[in-house]
């Protein structure tokens, strides 16, 4: 496998451009479903552009970690994104790592995000970091377990290889193991991207925040990287769901422009369908009590474990 520079560049741009658009679309649809007019989907871009232009206010007690964290959060999400096949198999960086590297990179980003929340020693940042770590301590194993279910079929933890296996006609999309693992990752997606019922991305109440609490002290450029990084991470997880589990339309290594265009259209359609699911969940549910979030994530873990079990039972 060669590193294809054009493909690499294309996927990087796609990640950067599509991620805020996706966040904006979710926000816009949510508003529509609540009888509001809401922001336009591309508002998320305008926000990032605005943050990039603004001056920063740096807390007095912040150390180098505070300055370092936004870059780590942003770049780790971006790197993780390059390991997931978006339009074409294999993914541009599939050579460098598979599912484990992806989970590891996301963990690295989260680790620095939590440190960045703790570093300025504000009361809310610490609460946010502690909650984020509590949530991810259960979300992460569930994610790993669910990915392993597919990895066992594929015989590889390489995400591109997994997508290829799923794409092959021999594989049944309605395999119970597959469905259970998908459900598990969907719950993890809600938790990892700070969605209702785990976290509320639209709240102004610092005491209830998880993800936003860690960002409270960030402003200007750093905030832009943090927000952008978070939306890229969301896109990565969503791509994982739609392309590894439903690699319909995903183009092969030697695909022409037409096949790529078809791949893009299929990809967009699948993402929008997933967005719609997230929007419905967010609109019809209240946030869980913080101490019930582990229950939800344990459910994800159990689903993933069942997926793994049924993998062997129904083989």
């Amino acid at each position, binding site marked *: 496998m060669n590193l294809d520079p054009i493909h690499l560049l294309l996927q990087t741009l796609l990640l950067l451009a599509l991620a805020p658009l996706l966040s904006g679309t979710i926000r816009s649809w*949510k508003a529509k*479903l*609540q*009888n*509001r007019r809401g922001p336009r989907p591309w508002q998320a871009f305008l926000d990032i552009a605005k943050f990039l232009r603004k001056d920063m206010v740096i807390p007095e007690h912040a150390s180098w970690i505070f300055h370092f964290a936004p870059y780590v959060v942003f770049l780790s999400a971006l790197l993780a994104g390059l390991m997931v096949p978006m339009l074409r198999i294999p993914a541009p960086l599939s050579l460098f790592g598979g599912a484990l590297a992806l989970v590891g990179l996301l963990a690295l980003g989260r680790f620095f995000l939590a440190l960045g929340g703790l570093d300025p020693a504000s*009361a*809310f940042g*610490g*609460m946010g970091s502690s909650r984020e770590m509590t949530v991810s301590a259960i979300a992460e194993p569930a994610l790993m377990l669910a990915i392993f279910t597919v990895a066992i079929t594929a015989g590889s933890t390489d995400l591109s290889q997994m997508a290829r296996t799923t794409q092959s006609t021999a594989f049944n999309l309605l395999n119970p193991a597959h469905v259970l693992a998908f459900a598990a990752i969907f719950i993890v997606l809600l938790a990892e991207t700070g969605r*209702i*019922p785990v976290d*509320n991305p*639209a*709240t*102004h*109440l*610092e*005491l*209830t925040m998880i993800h936003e609490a860690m960002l409270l002290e960030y402003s200007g450029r750093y905030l832009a990287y943090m927000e952008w990084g978070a939306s890229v991470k969301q896109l990565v997880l969503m791509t994982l769901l739609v392309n590894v589990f439903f690699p319909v339309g995903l183009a092969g290594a030697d695909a022409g422009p037409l096949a790529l265009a078809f791949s893009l259209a299929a990809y967009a359609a699948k993402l929008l369908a997933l967005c719609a699911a997230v929007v419905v969940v967010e*609109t*019809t*549910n*209240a*946030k*869980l*009590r*913080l*101490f*019930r979030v582990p229950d939800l994530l344990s459910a994800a873990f159990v689903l993933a474990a069942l997926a793994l079990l049924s993998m062997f039972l129904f083989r």
Partner: protein
Amino acid sequence: MNLDRVSPDLRPIAEDIARRFGNRIDAWDTPRPNEVYVHASMDLAAGFCAHLHRRWNVRLIAVFADDFRNEGGVFHLYYALAADAAHGFVFLRAPVSPDTPQFTSLANAIPALNWQEREVQDMFGLKLVGHPNPRRCALHDDWPEVYPLRKDFGLHTVLPPFQGERHKFRQVEGEGVFQVPVGPVHAGIIEPGHFLFSVAGEPVLYLQLRMFYVHKGAEKLFEHLPPPHAVRLAESISGDSSFAHATAFCHAIERAANVEAPPRARGIRSVCLELERIYNHVADIGAICTDVAFVTAHMHAMRLKEAVLCACEELTGSRLLRGMACLGGVRFDWDAGQIALLRALTARLRPEFDSLVELIDGSSSTRDRLETTGILQPKVARDLGVVGIAGRASGFDHDLRRDFPHAAYDQVKISVPVYQAGDVKHRLQVRVDEVRESFSIVEQLAARLPAGPVRSEIGELPAGRVALGYVEGWRGEIFHWIRTAPGNRLARCKIKDPSLQNWPALSEAILGNIVPDFPVVNKSFNLSYSGTDR
């Protein structure tokens, strides 16, 4: 002593007081049948209040002071008691000599008086004796030793900048215990208040409240305004209760002048009070849902609130009913079209409100967040004298509209929702029940609003009169007590907003809950910072 003027309901209590405390009572005064003043020395206060509470289930609604030195050479301390079953108020008036400016605290026996007694101490410089925590309260530590409500303190006094030590917050210690300071400046458009959480992980061990960041000197200002202008000031005591506060003030003035608002004006007042209740309750129901991230219900609630506000504008010229209240009645009369609009409003809102309630009740995730959250035990509520919505969710079976019918509430059927559970869900439920009740009251009044004028003339106020005005606002009972001065002025205007009474209950309700549940518990009380600190 002449008890003939006392209303028949209140007379047994007055006779009992005369029998039991007669030899220690210096004077009686009955300016109105349901308002009795007993003049006695300070030592009587504890026994007097305790006896009336035990024998007649009378509750202490306010403690306040009045600088009476120019007229009588002493300060007056008032203990205002409400006898709900007898539909009357009893006041104990105790002189405090300026030579020994101190008074005995009752806060140990009646915790509900904690802040009120300290407010008297801060504002009048009457030292508390025997108070468990006699620190500064209404005026912060950075105030110099001045007593703003004394007559010799000029309205335009400029105070020197802060010197000395800042406020020391109570320390809570232990392994893994952290203190989380929140405020006084908050996210969102709300008023300032400081909340210091002591937490072990997420559960709250202790919550210290520090209010009184918005002192505006309103009570002092009342003493310098002619009453018709003061109505506008009363409107701004708490912006979400502007009509209720203004009406309570007008009620006090009317009682002092022995003038009653005409029947039509009283009907219109009741309708406006109910409109204020509906728009605030509906907004709160939505806001409680927002705080548990059930935004859909919030958006529907905002839509309903907007409909009420638009109707308010059609009816009074102001979305928040500003400028409608006036001495002797109301400013504007309503024509048949406006009354039809009122009927159309309730007809439209009833089904929509029902479906909003159904939406909330049908959302199991929302119910899970609200039930058993932030429980205020009825016993604690009773000790703290919690009133209004929060009180009624914790077993407080009182409503001025039923027990002391003011405005046109004697013309309508009212049922008061009372629950014992005291959690967020039941504070929400009290609001739901009251909105439905308000629809019915508005319909009853709109159907038979008496004809006639909407305003009685109030001439110059006679000097030296005292009067209590009362209104059941949407948040709870509002009292305005006034004493008139020569030249159509007020010598004193004491304002009692339910928030002052209810804030300490929040500290109790949050205990054992987790930090992220605080916003929804706080919202379920929805107290006014401005009304607490006038």
